[in-house]
């Protein structure tokens, strides 16, 4: 069996003909396997959906029950037969519930990793490298300039600023699913024990994290009445709220933004960010390369992001590599600055 017989590219996304299913399809299909809950990967309207319990719950929260004809939970590590194909979900370390999907038939194994990261994240299960013949990788930060620093240093910078400007509210833009909760957890690890305030748009998903036993300390939803009294507080909000009227009600706010794009100064400046925090839920360049080496695949398919550099790097290592040029993914969790506003949240 050739790899393209097992998985092929269709307008709806990756398609497994022997199993009759798509992975993270961008349009409604009869049978979908979903890697994680970000809206560019998990869409409503499919016939049957197979995903981890947490991903199914997140889809239910965002799209309402009935987002699919039927659902089935995939336990991590458990083999599930679909037609002639065996599939298995493995942790991806991206957000709560995120998984890579290994598809196996006729002695050939392809791993579709969805979005993943290798850096520390107290809110989800760490990435697990899975040996395979073909590895499908994202390339959101697929340029050697993207090397994420230790997140703990970034959180320390935020807290240092809170100490230096105790009369100002620190508003941190962070995506609603994953980044916001990870940031709160990191603040707790760094010893910040006061209440952390969140924008109303983050409430549902943050409550969900809490219900899954993620320890985030005291969370308060910002109400209109509090806004002027939030001097010295850390307030987490969706990135789009940083420029809103909403943010202007705070006492002389410091605007921070937690994203891998903050590594590049021109990108941070475009958004008028005063305190860029390089915190990403995607693998950086070094981790993309390391992961490709660890899974031992002879062939690499590169999905969304900066494909060229990664394909070049693979070729220089003697690996077969090709860009998939897939349309419709520009992760909600970490789109290029400015595109975020257009993405569904």
């Amino acid at each position, binding site marked *: 069996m050739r790899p393209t017989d097992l998985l092929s590219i269709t307008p709806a996304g990756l398609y497994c003909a022997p199993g009759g299913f798509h992975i993270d399809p961008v349009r409604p299909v009869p049978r979908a396997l979903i890697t994680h809950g970000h809206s560019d990967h998990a869409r409503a309207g499919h016939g049957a959906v197979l995903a981890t319990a947490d991903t199914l719950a997140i889809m239910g929260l965002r799209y309402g029950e009935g987002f699919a004809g039927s659902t089935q939970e995939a336990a991590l590590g458990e083999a599930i037969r679909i037609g002639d194909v065996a599939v298995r979900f493995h942790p991806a370390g991206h957000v709560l519930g995120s998984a890579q999907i290994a598809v196996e038939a006729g002695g050939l194994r392809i791993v579709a990793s969805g979005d993943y990261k290798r850096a520390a994240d107290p809110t989800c299960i760490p990435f697990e490298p899975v040996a395979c013949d073909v590895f499908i990788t994202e390339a959101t930060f697929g*340029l*050697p*300039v*993207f*090397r994420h*620093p230790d997140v703990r240093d970034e959180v320390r*910078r935020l807290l240092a*600023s809170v100490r*230096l*400007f105790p009369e100002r509210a620190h508003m941190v833009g962070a995506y609603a699913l994953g980044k916001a909760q990870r940031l709160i957890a990191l603040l707790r690890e760094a010893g910040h024990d006061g209440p952390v305030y969140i924008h109303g748009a983050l409430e549902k998903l943050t409550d969900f994290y809490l219900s899954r036993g993620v320890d985030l300390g005291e969370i308060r939803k910002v109400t209109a009445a509090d806004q002027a009294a939030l001097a010295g507080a850390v307030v987490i909000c969706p990135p789009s709220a940083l420029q809103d009227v909403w943010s202007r009600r705070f006492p002389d706010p*410091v605007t921070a933004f937690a994203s891998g794009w903050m*590594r*590049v*100064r*021109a990108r*941070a*400046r*475009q958004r*008028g*960010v*005063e*305190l*860029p925090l390089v915190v990403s839920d995607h693998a950086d360049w070094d981790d993309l390369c390391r992961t490709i080496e660890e899974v031992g695949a002879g062939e690499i398919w590169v999905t969304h992001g*900066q494909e*060229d*550099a990664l394909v*070049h*790097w693979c070729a*220089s290592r003697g690996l077969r590599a090709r860009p998939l040029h897939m349309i419709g993914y520009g992760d909600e969790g970490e789109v*290029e*600055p*400015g*595109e975020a506003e*257009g993405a569904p949240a």
Partner: protein
Amino acid sequence: MNRFAALLDRLAYEPRRNAKLRLLADHFRTAADPERGYALAAMTGSLSFAAAKPGIIRALIAERTDPVLFGLSYDYVGDLSETVALMWPAPPHAPEDEPPSLSEVVETLASIGRTELPSRLARWLDALDETGRWALLKLITGGLRIGVSARLAKTAVASLGGFDPDEIEHVWHGLEPPYVPLFAWVEGRGPRPVSQDPAPFRPVMLAHAIEDRDFETLDPADFSAEWKWDGIRVQVVSGTDAEGRVRTRLYSRTGEEITRSFPDVCEALHGIEAAIDGELLVVRDGRVQSFNILQQRLNRAAVTPKMMTEFPAAVRAYDLLARDGEDLRPLPFAERRARLEAFVAQAGRDRLDLSPVVPFSDWEGLAEARLSPAAAGADAEAVEGIMLKRRDAAYLPGRPKGVWFKWKRDPHVVDAVLMYAQRGHGKRSSFYSDYTFGVWRTGAAGEELVPVGKAYFGFTDEELLQIDRFVRKHTVDRFGPVREVIHEPHAGLVLEVAFEGLARSTRHKSGLAMRFPRISRLRWDKPPIEADRIETLERLLAENRTDRASEP
């Protein structure tokens, strides 16, 4: 170095003056000598490293990275120092050296030989983190642009001891990096450093932008008016020290010394025993040249005899702050003006003339003069607007309220990129003289230019020919009489556009409409990527609506 780098990094993103002050003061308070002194030197432009050229940095990164990956990265980041700082590969073994301190960097670079420099630089880069590498590369290539003036840095130092920043200015020119006695003084641990400088900087007096409603309350009889020239506001000071040596210095309005850039002016004004507040201009054959021409001189790194002949600089005097050791600043403006006129006539120096007074009896008359500064004679083009000064006011540092006003001819300017050009009418019908220009915004497909207006005038005939030539050479598409002109981040023409106001508009893609836009300057020197962004206009629109009084 890493601490200094963290400070620079934070300052580079911080727009608020007060927050910058706090960040600087915090650093000066907590960093040790001599680190903080060298940081102060870096902020005040008192450091220069002749040895470090971008070529060395390119060679270092080329040895360590794949050229294709470097090319893709540089393309994406758009800045050499930053690309190198981010891409610099981790050394195979843990670096042998500790990250260098700022002092180590400054002291080493002052003495290191050319041949040793690359390997030393590489060791430093190995030991530093991304931000540290960025700061080091920016520092040594002279590309440190963090929006901190020398004045602001000195204000932060002053705040450590609760001093007025002017007190720092008074002792400043007798001091050298790393300023250990200065910090000892402001912290109350040492004596006041003695300024030996016979040509010190005196903090500059600034004007507020005049508001419509000001005309209702101000009495024309209380004010004197003069032209505001479109050059660089400077202070030229010459005096004799205790040993009889004459010193002549030229300062920018923030107190940065720019003597070395204008030896021609300083030589001509050597020994005047006075402090003059004026405007630095390029004057050819008695005629003031546009700011464009002055900028061509400012852009050259080295001062050469050829350049001084081609761009002869001169000072047009506004005010006399001191003469023969007497401080004239407490005198009323009318009195200082009389002394200035006498002084300029008596001095009879080349490269020094008087900025004339604009006679007027009521605001309407002055408004007329402002619109057509023909009274300024052949130099009308170099008039930026009008300055109003209270006759009875002393010369006060900073921007005191209600004393000086500026009334600009062009209240707003923005740097935009030429996108389309269309043939003109009448005698201009053979030229591309109607220009559609745009500013940057982040669109669905990334960075893009969005058209914000159209201008047909403001440029000279000579400039029209230049733009026309540019349009013909760089056409990328044609639609009837309209040509689309190249407008990419690193290819295209930046136009400085002046306009009277902004309004919301649903007819324009940008959602904005400009009132009376005109081309005020061609910015051949500026790559399109550095043109303004739509947010700048949005901000202007928001400010105009809510807080007109706060224009700086």
